[in-house]
């Protein structure tokens, strides 16, 4: 099984030096493009590969790049979104800590494709090892002449800076990330104008995920067809898949796009811990809808997971077992979203804390009649199109699907009104 992204990572996870990386084919794609590919040709192969963004939304990367005006005056920016903070997501950490040169190579090639002359790594503050390893790798790349002025004598210039954030989930939203890099609060921006036209400091800007950009050198080296063949389905490439929760062997694996949820849980994660049963899973981080037993054979790729009513998201799955409280699980997620809401728009700022309060009441067996209906109404009021960014609709995904699949778990704790007034219970077994 081919593992282009992680195959060269050492068992002890120490990153390769530049020299070691070159021995396993590192920086070949950079040499290839500078020798004889136009930016348009690099864009074309990426477009043809059908690579989709690995940051969660799955937007086609080649198409995203094509909106950058190639002839716009400099500066232009390429930014890698390394703010990984979606609960349950732990995939970019590996690429950042253990394959920094692959990311840098991907960034240089991508910057060339959009003719950017400035690049930033927007790194989450908590990733200390990554910060150390990237700093060292960037320095090596400068020394080798892969960064800076007139790269390998081609006339192409690129500067690269590491920016470590100061902690806020919203920094991962791409327009909020731009505000944060400009020294502002990380609130999102209205679109249009899109960042490709007016992004960082009002200049054309591309923001891509770590895993997305790490794919680029391999696509440029081996071609679009090769990339498509890596996958078991029509959705190309390999993907980092993770499983956390009460399984026997939680972990992270690079696998072909299109492995099934069953294979991930049973084969790779070793199945559920003894004495526990699978109840459901969020397939791609905290802001994705639950999949349940009936979806075990769903292929993990963007269209198949969407057809099953959820999203592939970040590809890192959180498993819910039968001894863990569903209401407690969802409450924990909503607590996160309520805390990390940037407060810019009312439904999200006011709605999430309210939802958290109601879930808390239900969790304490103090729920009231009408609470579930109220929660359901909120999944619409905070749904797509009702808020300024995707945080709130994302927060509603686990909630709406939990109510759909596990309604009884919520109902169990709702007292009927008579009981609330009189204190007398009516229990229907």
């Amino acid at each position, binding site marked *: 099984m081919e593992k282009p992204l992680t195959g060269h990572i050492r068992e002890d996870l120490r990153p390769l030096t530049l020299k070691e990386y070159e021995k396993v084919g590192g920086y070949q794609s950079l040499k290839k493009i500078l020798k004889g590919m136009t930016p348009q040709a690099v864009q074309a192969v990426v477009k043809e590969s059908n690579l989709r963004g690995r940051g969660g939304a799955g937007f086609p990367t080649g198409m995203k790049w094509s909106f950058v005006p190639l002839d716009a005056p400099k500066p232009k920016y390429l930014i890698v979104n390394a703010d*990984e*903070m*979606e*609960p*349950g*997501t*732990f995939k*970019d*950490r590996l690429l950042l800590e253990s394959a920094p040169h692959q990311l840098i190579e991907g960034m240089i090639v991508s910057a060339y494709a959009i003719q950017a002359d400035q690049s930033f790594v927007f790194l*989450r*503050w*908590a*990733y*200390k*090892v990554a910060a150390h390893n990237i700093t060292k790798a960037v320095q090596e790349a400068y020394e080798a002449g892969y960064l800076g002025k007139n790269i390998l004598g081609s006339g192409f210039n690129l500067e690269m*800076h590491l920016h*470590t*954030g*100061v*902690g*806020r*989930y919203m920094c991962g939203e791409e327009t909020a990330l731009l505000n*944060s*890099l*400009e*020294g*502002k*609060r*990380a609130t999102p921006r209205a679109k249009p104008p899109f960042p490709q036209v007016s992004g960082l*400091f009002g200049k054309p800007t591309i923001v891509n995920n770590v895993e997305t950009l790490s794919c680029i050198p391999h696509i440029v080296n081996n071609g679009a067809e090769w990339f498509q063949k890596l996958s078991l389905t029509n959705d190309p490439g390999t993907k980092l898949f*993770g*499983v*956390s*929760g*009460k399984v026997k062997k*939680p*972990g*992270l694996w690079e696998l072909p796009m299109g492995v099934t949820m069953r294979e991930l849980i049973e084969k790779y994660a070793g199945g559920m811990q003894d004495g526990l049963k699978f109840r459901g899973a969020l397939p791609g981080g*905290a802001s994705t809808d639950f999949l349940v037993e009936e979806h075990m054979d769903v292929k993990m790729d963007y269209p198949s997971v969407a057809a099953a009513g959820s999203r592939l998201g970040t590809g*890192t799955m*959180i*498993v*819910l*077992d039968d001894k*863990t409280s569903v209401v*407690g*699980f969802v409450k*924990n*997620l909503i*607590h*996160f979203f309520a*805390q*990390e809401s*940037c407060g810019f728009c009312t439904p999200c700022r006011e709605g999430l804390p309210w939802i958290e309060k109601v879930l808390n009441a239900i969790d304490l067996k103090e729920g009231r009649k009408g609470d579930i209906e109220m929660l359901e109404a909120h999944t619409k009021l905070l749904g797509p199109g009702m808020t300024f960014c995707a945080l709130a609709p994302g927060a509603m995904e686990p909630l709406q699907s939990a109510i759909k699949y596990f309604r009884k778990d919520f109902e169990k704790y709702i007292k009927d009104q008579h009981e609330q007034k009189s204190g007398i219970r009516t229990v229907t077994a």
Partner: protein
Amino acid sequence: MLTAEEKKEIDEAIHIVPYRQAACIEALKVVQNHRKWVSDESLKDVAAYMEMTAEELDSVATFYNMIFRKPVGRHIILVCDSISCWVMGYESLRDELTKKLGIKFGETSADNRFTMLPNPCLGTCDCAPAMMIGNDLYRNITLDQLDEILKKYE
């Protein structure tokens, strides 16, 4: 008053952005690095240096989780309270730390040794529960390891 060293570090950050104010988060980081937290006094000094009002800068400072506008202890314990760590029982880790150190989330121990804070997902969910102390990451934590871990931080 900003020290010469702080000013030098802030100037380096200003150098890579098109205008001064864009480096204000970096400036806050520099000052916090040297002083552990950002007091009202420090905030005013940074604001003046960045040619911003203190109010403007404070609106930025208070937005971010990792800029401390209140004093903190010598070591900061960040316990992951997000979903995978919740499933794997971070609550007993939190309670054990409270028992050992006598502080709850948001508090600093009387000897100023530790501040304990909840923190969203630390990006190591396959090794839950997880926490950070200072720059160090601890994962797959069991309660019997805690004494050994805490000993390293004086």
